[in-house]
């Protein structure tokens, strides 16, 4: 087929390459506008607190101060980014109302003539906060008596009545009973900052025709526009979003955090307003990938076939869940790995704590599953007494196999990929592994197992 193609398959030069090497590629922050104002946030210094009072008096006296925005200025101050695709409930505040749930939560937006003036005014906003007990561990948050982060009485995201995303195939407990080996593991991963070299930001500009143009480095232009329209309670046609050139994303720029408040600021001042995260805000305030704790229990037959896999995963969502509930669904769909396992049980919990919120990052729910599963596979190999290649080959899924989520595998090529990797590193595979393919199983000796 490749022979029939002209340019697909060719390493043509990047179309933005010359712009990149000359510095002419225009990122959002390379624009500036006459009269542009700057927005900086007053953020919670505490992990969990009740807001008693906000005193703006000293801030308002700062030379260059233009105005402040608080929760009452935001037309629809409660939202969830995934509300657009039906994920509920609305849970996050653009600006905090009565309570802050993590250190760094936005409370007051300060708009000023310069960044320096904005920073100075931020330093002069006095917050009266009453500290509340906080919870930081993904399992402690589930224990009775733990401080409750959400507004609905427990610390889990609810999946259609369940506190976790469930996947069930076969009967794991029965299979554990007849397994020759049980291998258990618990895996922990740290939260990860996406760390694009360009921080998240935007500039909102009032136009002559009453519309607002928002130059943004969002990864999802319409997601940002639609959420902004909802939060500001304006028709979408008042908004014009321009982007498409992003200085690295890695999932860090799919949250709709900067555009709504910057656009509101432009509306309230009738001036262009720039709001971009500082590097420390990017690291300490913007959402990260969740910390994960993953428990795996596997039942294995004497010959090395995994006959049952039970996975219980907890993603620490932080104070707001953003895209994380969806990551748990993706995680649950992939938490058995690329293996044919007839009995699977997966419970994946999205848990709220008083940490920095979490959201998307490259590998959304799967990277951490792959880490846990592939370390687990080595432990299984060691227990069964085969090498790491063999254990993966004999368990590898093939086309036509039913995955735990009950979709039949269509594009399985794990076996061929492992064969290619073995060849690349000079690892000589035994003939039976070399002869395997991902073709659908027949009724032969390799097929039809439990």
């Amino acid at each position, binding site marked *: 087929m490749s022979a029939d193609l002209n340019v697909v398959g060719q390493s043509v*030069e*990047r179309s*933005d*390459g*010359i*712009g*990149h*090497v*000359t*510095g*002419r*590629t*225009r*990122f959002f*922050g*390379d624009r*500036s506008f006459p009269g542009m104002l700057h927005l900086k946030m007053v953020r919670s210094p505490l992990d969990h607190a009740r807001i008693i009072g906000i005193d703006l008096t000293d801030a308002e006296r700062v030379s260059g101060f233009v105005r402040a925005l608080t929760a009452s200025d935001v037309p629809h101050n409660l939202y969830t980014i995934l509300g657009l695709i039906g994920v509920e409930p609305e849970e996050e505040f653009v600006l905090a109302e009565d309570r802050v749930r993590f250190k760094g939560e936005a409370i007051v937006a300060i708009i000023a003539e*310069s960044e*320096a003036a904005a920073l100075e005014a931020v330093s002069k906003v006095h917050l009266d906060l009453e500290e509340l007990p906080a919870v930081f561990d993904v399992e402690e948050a589930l224990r009775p008596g733990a401080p409750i982060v959400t507004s609905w009485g427990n610390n889990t995201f609810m999946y259609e009545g369940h506190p976790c995303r469930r996947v069930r195939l076969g009967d794991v407990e029965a299979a554990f009973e007849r397994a020759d080996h049980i291998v258990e593991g618990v895996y922990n991963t740290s939260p990860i900052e996406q*760390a*694009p*070299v*360009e*921080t998240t930001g935007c500039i909102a500009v009032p136009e002559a025709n009453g519309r607002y143009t928002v130059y943004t480095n969002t990864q999802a232009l319409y997601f940002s526009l639609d959420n902004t329209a909802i939060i500001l309670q304006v028709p979408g046609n008042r908004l014009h979003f321009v982007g498409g050139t*992003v*200085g*690295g*994303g*890695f999932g860090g720029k799919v949250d709709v955090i900067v555009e709504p408040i910057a656009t509101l600021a432009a509306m309230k001042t009738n001036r262009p307003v720039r709001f971009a995260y*500082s*590097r*420390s805000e990017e690291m300490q305030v913007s959402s990260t990938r969740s910390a994960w704790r993953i428990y795996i229990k596997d039942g294995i037959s004497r010959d090395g076939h995994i006959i049952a896999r039970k996975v219980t995963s907890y993603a620490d969502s932080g104070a707001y869940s953003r895209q994380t509930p969806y990551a748990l669904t993706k995680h649950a769909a992939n938490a058995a790995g690329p293996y044919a396992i007839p009995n699977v049980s997966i419970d994946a919990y999205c848990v709220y704590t008083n940490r920095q919120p979490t959201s998307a990052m490259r590998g959304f729910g799967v990277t951490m599953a792959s880490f846990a599963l592939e370390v687990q596979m080595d432990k299984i190999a060691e227990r069964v007494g085969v090498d790491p290649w063999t254990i993966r080959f004999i368990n590898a899924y093939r086309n036509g196999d039913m995955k735990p989520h009950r979709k039949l595998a269509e594009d399985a090529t794990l076996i061929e990929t492992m064969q290619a990797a073995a060849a690349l590193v000079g690892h000589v595979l035994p003939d039976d592994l070399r002869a395997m393919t991902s073709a659908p199983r027949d009724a032969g000796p390799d097929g039809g197992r439990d």
Partner: protein
Amino acid sequence: MASRIVTFDLGGREVEVMVRPMTTLQSVLRNQLGFTATKDGCRQGGCGSCTVLVNGQPMLSCLLPVEDVAGQRVTTLESITPAEGLHPIQQAFLDAHASQCGYCTPGMVMVSKALLDHDPAPTDDAIRHALTGNICRCTGYRPIVTAVHSAAEAVHDAADAMRGSAGERAR
């Protein structure tokens, strides 16, 4: 808070700017002069995306009050881009796919320029050491290191060709 006028050489032309106290060179370049090739990745001196050359030495424009460079020679990526085509370092970055998002590229090119000006035939070790202050989140760095090697060869070949055309072949 009186503003001051600061004059410096930017890529061979004298520029004069009026600044508030302690305005950074980065801010002057980007916000006052529209020289936005110099990037803005952290303002902490940690990412290298704002690297410019001051009297030929790489420095971080986010940490440099513009008043400190009054009367001095500042070189940015705009300054080294020729009227036609590309600087050999730019060409090498393009050919090696040493940019993905492109945000680190200006800083990387400027450090590479300083390196090749100091040392036209750097070792692999010298290239790697020169780039330790510049963060790239996309490429894994190897394509960038490869580009600097190629650029060094290209500069060297160009010099050879020039000598050759001058009829000074040793052979």
